[in-house]
């Protein structure tokens, strides 16, 4: 399989591809090489370049997948929470991190949350609990506690009780 097809296959499966794992020359040379493949795009996580196909993956998803691939799970969670609090806006159910693209276990999530709540760089991340016990995270930069609480209750309970 050539590299563009490998990237497409990975994107179809929800994964980004590290450039340095499939290419041993410079990034510029790689882009010159695949310039005819308009669907191949890149996102950056620190110094690392990740590749994905826009035919099969949205940029927002690729950015999240790259954060997870970098191995910094607390950062990946915190950035996702900030993004959702700013974009939709809404709090993020912790349950989200068990599925794609995170695939985290309860233990991994608990450990990451402990780090997030103890790290001054994520001082804006707060949590609320809905009446069914489900936990949501939100960023105080974009939502206040009362809004987050009320939105969490609606997502966890209200939408199902008042369909």
């Amino acid at each position, binding site marked *: 399989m050539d590299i563009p097809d490998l990237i497409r296959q990975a994107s179809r499966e929800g994964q980004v591809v590290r450039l340095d794992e499939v290419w041993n020359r410079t990034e510029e040379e790689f882009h010159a090489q695949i310039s005819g493949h308009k669907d191949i795009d890149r996102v950056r996580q620190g110094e690392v370049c990740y590749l994905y196909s826009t035919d099969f993956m949205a940029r927002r998803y690729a950015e999240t997948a790259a954060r997870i691939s970098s191995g910094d799970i607390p950062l990946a969670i915190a950035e996702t929470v900030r993004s959702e609090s700013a974009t939709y806006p809404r709090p993020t159910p912790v349950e989200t991190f068990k599925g794609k693209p995170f695939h985290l276990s309860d233990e991994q999530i608990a450990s990451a949350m402990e780090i997030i709540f103890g790290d001054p760089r994520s001082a804006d991340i707060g949590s609320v609990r809905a009446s069914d016990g489900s936990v949501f995270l939100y960023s105080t930069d974009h939502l206040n506690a009362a809004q987050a609480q009320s939105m969490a209750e*609606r997502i966890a309970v209200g939408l199902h009780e008042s369909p």
Partner: protein
Amino acid sequence: MAEYYGWTGKTLRVDLGAGSIATEDTVARYRDYLGGTGIGYKVLWDEVPAKTKSFDEANKLIVAAGPLTGTSAPCGGRTSVTAIFPTVSPRELVATGHMGGEWGAELKYAGWDAIIIEGRANKPVYLAIIDDQVELRDAAHLWGNGILRATSAICQEMGPETQVAAIGQAGENLVRLATIVNSYSHSAGGVGGVFGSKGLKAIAVRGSGAVRIAADKKAWRDLIRYVLSLFGANNQHVVPSTPQPWAEFSSPGSRWTARKGLYWGAADPPVETGECRADDLNRMAYRTAKATYDLGPNAEPFTVRMGGCHSCPIRCHAHLDVPSVEKHGVSRYSASTCVGWGARNFFRSFPDGRRGMTSVEAAVVGRNLADDFGIWTNYGQLQRDFRYAYDNGLIQANLPAAEYKSIPWERYEAGDPGFLQEIYRRIAFKEGEFGQAFAEGSGRLAERWKFPDGYYKDRSSGWWKMGHPQHHAADEAGQSGVLINMMYNRDCQCHSHSNFIRNGLPLRIQKEIGAKLWGAGALDEGDNFTRMNPDKARFALWALLRKELHDSLTLCNWMYPLAASPHRSRSYEGDNGAEALLYTAVTGDKKDAAQLDLVAERIFALHRALTVRDMGTMDMRSRHDTVPDWVFDHPADVQPFTPGHSKMDRQDIEVARDMFYELLGWDKKTGAPTRAALERLGLEDVASGLARIGLLPG
């Protein structure tokens, strides 16, 4: 009769008292009202005297499809059943129950657009329609049976493909909170008792014809494909509920619940819903895995498949096989959606939690009992009223001691789904004070048992007005939601606004779409409402007119309007004119969205005129368009427009009323339609009728 496109051209009029059956020309009489609720309101206005009560012989039932019903217009499978409605309190007024399934399409294939039922049979009958052969048949052998047995018996008599809409014991016993149900699980709330009062057990239809479409085949096929391409999942949620590679956005509240690893677990072999990309129309029916949405993850292994209505690719109707419910005396098989599963809300708790397996069992037991006895949930108000009455000691206070003792409350406290047999049987047969009181519906129950003021002021009671609950009100749509909830005599049954607000798109995109349709100020950030403005009034009016349009054409208001779509390439815009495109193609009557909205406004205004006439007052503003105190007073310690709360302001809602009435040209002081407003809609006769009885402003 002439041949038409869309309409079959024929309306059936059945006088149960005289035993007579007649045919009328639909297009000549009702074309300006489309079908569905439009025909219903028109017949009630023309033929049913003011202040008729729901179980009076003079009340009429209008069971109506519309020009799009039975075509392949996506989600064109609804039927509207309009009458003076039993649960409206304190005075019974016009309202409609709506049902899906295949019944409406079959009616069209039999050659009929609508059925007007009048009079009262002197013995139980059912109406049998096989194309042009229409007859009243003896239903003595069916009377006393539940809906399942009655439906099966009629299918044995008329053929297995027959579509049967029947009442159960609740309707027979004039329970106000009764349904009619077709195809075993598609119900129309509130009208079962009207069937019962007329001695009408069922309407059974078998048709061998087709609906004629004006557009040529290719144009029609292209249009269908275009409309389908704009579809999301149930409620026109346009993003998946979980992050998926193909999707730019996701929303945990979305009904687009399909994902890898989620199965119809009781299918043989199990079927994986998988990821259903927005551009893959062939997988559309997998998008909405509704059982797990409604009932939680425990429902997955019991999901056989998703079902639905005529020409619906969305399939919101979950079919379950739950063997463990047989111990509670009901079938293991069940099908429903949304509040149809709401019987679990009778209970405060279950041994394994609110979304545990016992909750699934309670939902199935309750659904099977409700749809066999034919009992209406009133959008969950039955369950909320029960909980309120129980928790506040009102059941114990109002039942004779022996009756109270006869109810096995320990099973209720234990969260035993079998307890539901007690509730539903007592209501269906009006057994004792319990059964008689709950059979009356929310308004009369609260009056009969003298619910304290706190009930009406308690947000958790769900009470809105006139015996019915809120339905996507201030919590979701601020002042627009309040206006929408004011307008009808039952719960508003309007989803146009909530579909859009819940569609899962970021607020920025919703606002961009909203600005084009209603104005830049129409939408607020979730739980962070701003003061009233004219754009919010336009949003409310759009939602209401489209609801009325859908109930008349008929199209499903749980999918339309298609204001948004799942496509980034369209900037997530849908097509606000989709209904008009379908109407024009089917009927050949060329109308754009604005012109069709004007027809909807005519229908909406006629509903208002009927309400004015039958309430005997013009003062809709203070006597009809009311808002419960809890909208303004809860919680006590926060101010209106505080982020995180949907608390409204009384003066601001007065402004909302002004703006809304002004949009329609209604009298601001009373909220009643003016002569000019009615004449603008071609309702000169209605204006004159109201003027004659002193109920026309000015």
